[in-house]
C-alpha cells in the first residue's frame, strides 16, 4: 500500500511540475511569436513565474456564490483534476516502465477521458448562474461530439497494432512510426485533440474575447486553479498519446537500443514537440464559431474517420497483414 502511494507520487510530482512549466513555456513561446518579451521578472528569465501565479491563486479568496450547490461546486474542479491525472497510470514512460501495464490500457484511458465531461457539466450547473450553465452545455456538447472521431482514430490504430496495450502499440512501431502510413489520419487526430482539450482555435468553453469564460465563471482562486491544472494535464496527456500513437512513443529512430532513462527522455522530447504544436496553433489561428465547430466534427471528421476505418481494415484484409 505504502509502496503504491510512493509510486503514484513519483509520477504525480514531476507531472505537476511539468504542468507548471508548460504554462510558462506557452507564455514564453507565444510572446516570442508575437514579438514580445513575456514573463521575465520572477526568477531567472521568469522561470519561477508559474509558482508565483500559483501562490497568488492560493492566497486569494475562494468566492462561493450564495445560491450555489456548495458540495458539487467544490467537488467538480477536484473531479476534473483527478480524472486528468488518473490517465497517467497506464502511460508507459520507457520499456516496461509504467505504473500499471494494463492489457486494456487504451480502453482505460478512453473511459477516464470520457468521464472528464462530468467536471465541466457539474461545475456549470452547480454555480446556479445562467452564464456558467450555458457555458457548460456548450463545452460538454463539444467534448461529447469530438469523442466520437477520437474513438474512431484510436479504433483504427488498435486494429492495426492488434492490441489495446500501450506497450504493444509502441513496440509495434519499431519498424516504422505510424505517422508515415497514417499521415492523413494524423491530421484528423491533431484537429481532434485540439478540440478535445479545449484549445484555440476551438476554445469555445472559455473564449475570453466574445463570451464569458464559460463553465468556470463563478470559480475563483483554488477551484479555478484546479480547473487550470486539469486542463493542462489533459493537454499533456494528449501530447504523450500523440507521440505514443503516431511517433513511436519512447522508441528512438533506426532501432538504436538505449537505456530506460534515455527512452523516457525521448518520449518527453516528442511530447514537448507536440505541445509546441498546440502553442503554435493557438498563436496562429483565429477562433471558429460554435456551429462551424459542430459541422466540422459531424460532417467532416466523422465521415472521414469512418472512411479511413473501412479503408484500413480492408487493406489489412487484402494484404493479410493482420497482426492477430
Amino acid at each position, binding site marked *: 500500500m505504502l509502496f503504491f502511494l510512493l509510486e503514484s507520487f513519483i509520477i504525480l510530482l514531476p507531472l505537476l511540475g511539468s504542468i507548471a512549466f508548460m504554462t510558462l513555456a506557452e507564455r514564453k513561446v507565444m510572446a516570442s511569436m508575437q514579438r514580445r518579451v513575456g514573463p521575465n521578472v520572477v526568477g531567472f528569465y521568469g522561470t519561477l513565474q508559474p509558482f508565483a501565479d500559483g501562490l497568488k491563486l492560493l492566497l486569494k479568496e475562494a468566492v462561493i456564490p450564495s445560491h450555489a450547490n456548495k458540495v*458539487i461546486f467544490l467537488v467538480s474542479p477536484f473531479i476534473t483534476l483527478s480524472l486528468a491525472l488518473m490517465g497517467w497510470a497506464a502511460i508507459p514512460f520507457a520499456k516496461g516502465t509504467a505504473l500499471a501495464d494494463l*492489457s486494456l490500457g487504451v*480502453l482505460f484511458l478512453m473511459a477516464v477521458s470520457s468521464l472528464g*465531461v462530468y467536471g465541466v*457539466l457539474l461545475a456549470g450547473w452547480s454555480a446556479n448562474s445562467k452564464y456558467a450553465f450555458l457555458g457548460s452545455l456548450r463545452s460538454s456538447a463539444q467534448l*461529447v461530439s469530438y469523442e466520437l472521431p477520437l474513438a474512431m482514430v484510436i479504433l483504427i490504430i488498435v486494429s492495426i497494432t492488434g492490441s489495446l496495450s500501450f506497450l504493444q502499440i509502441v513496440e509495434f512501431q519499431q519498424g516504422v512510426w505510424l505517422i508515415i502510413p497514417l499521415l492523413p489520419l494524423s491530421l484528423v487526430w491533431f484537429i481532434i485533440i485540439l478540440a478535445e482539450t479545449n484549445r484555440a482555435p476551438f476554445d469555445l468553453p472559455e473564449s475570453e474575447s466574445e463570451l464569458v469564460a464559460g463553465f468556470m465563471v463563478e470559480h475563483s482562486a483554488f477551484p479555478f486553479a484546479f480547473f487550470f491544472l486539469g486542463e493542462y494535464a489533459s493537454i499533456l496527456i494528449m501530447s504523450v498519446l500523440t507521440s505514443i500513437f503516431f511517433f513511436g512513443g519512447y522508441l528512438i529512430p533506426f532501432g538504436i537500443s538505449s537505456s530506460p532513462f534515455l527512452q523516457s527522455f525521448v518520449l518527453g522530447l516528442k511530447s514537448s514537440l507536440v505541445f509546441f504544436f498546440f502553442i503554435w496553433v493557438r498563436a496562429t489561428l483565429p477562433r471558429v464559431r460554435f456551429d462551424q465547430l459542430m459541422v466540422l466534427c459531424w460532417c467532416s471528421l466523422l465521415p472521414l474517420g469512418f472512411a479511413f476505418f473501412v479503408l484500413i481494415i480492408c487493406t489489412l484484409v487484402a494484404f493479410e497483414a493482420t497482426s492477430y
Partner: protein
Amino acid sequence: MNVFLLEILPFVAVIFAISLLTALNPILAVLFLIAVFITVSAYLALLGLTFLALSYLIIYVGAIAILFLFVIMMLDIKLAELSSSGEEASKVYPVAFLIGTPFLWTLTGSPLFRGDTLYSWFDLTTLGIAHISDPSALQWTNLFAAFSNIHSLGVCLYTVYPLWLIYAGIILLLAIIGPIILCLDKTSGSTS
C-alpha cells in the same frame, strides 16, 4: 483488501440506488445513478472482468448518463412540483412488486432458472462454457489461448452466438434509424 472491497461495494451500490429513488432533485438522482454505475463497474473490475467494467464505464457513464444529465439540465423543472407526498409515492408499489419479483426470482436461482443465476453469467471460469449447447463448438485449445477477457468473449460471441450478435446489431441499427425517422418533419416537403 480486494475481498473487503468486493463485500462492501454491493452495499454501497444499493445505498446509492436507494438514494437515487428517493432524491427529489432530478439532477441529483442522475448523479446517484452515475454513482451506481461506477460502483458496479468497480465491482466488475475487482471480479476480474476488466473489459466489461471498462465498457460499462465508457458506454453507460461516459455516453448515456451524460446525455441524461444534459437533457435533464436543459428541462425547466420546478423543484416544488416534484415533491410527491407519501400516498402518491405508494401508488407504484404494486407495479414495483410485479416487476421486481420475477427479477429477484431469476437472481436468486429459483428452480425454474436453475444454473442461470446472475452470478453464473458473470463467472469468468464458465464464461465460455456455461451457455453452449454444443460443447464441441468451443475447443479446449481456444480457451487455452485466450488470456484476456476480450479473447474469451470474442471466441464465445463469434463461434457460438453469431446469430445473437447479428440480432443485437440489427436492434441497434433500428435504434439509430428509428429516432431519425420519428424526427422527420413530414408537413414541409422541401429538401433544403
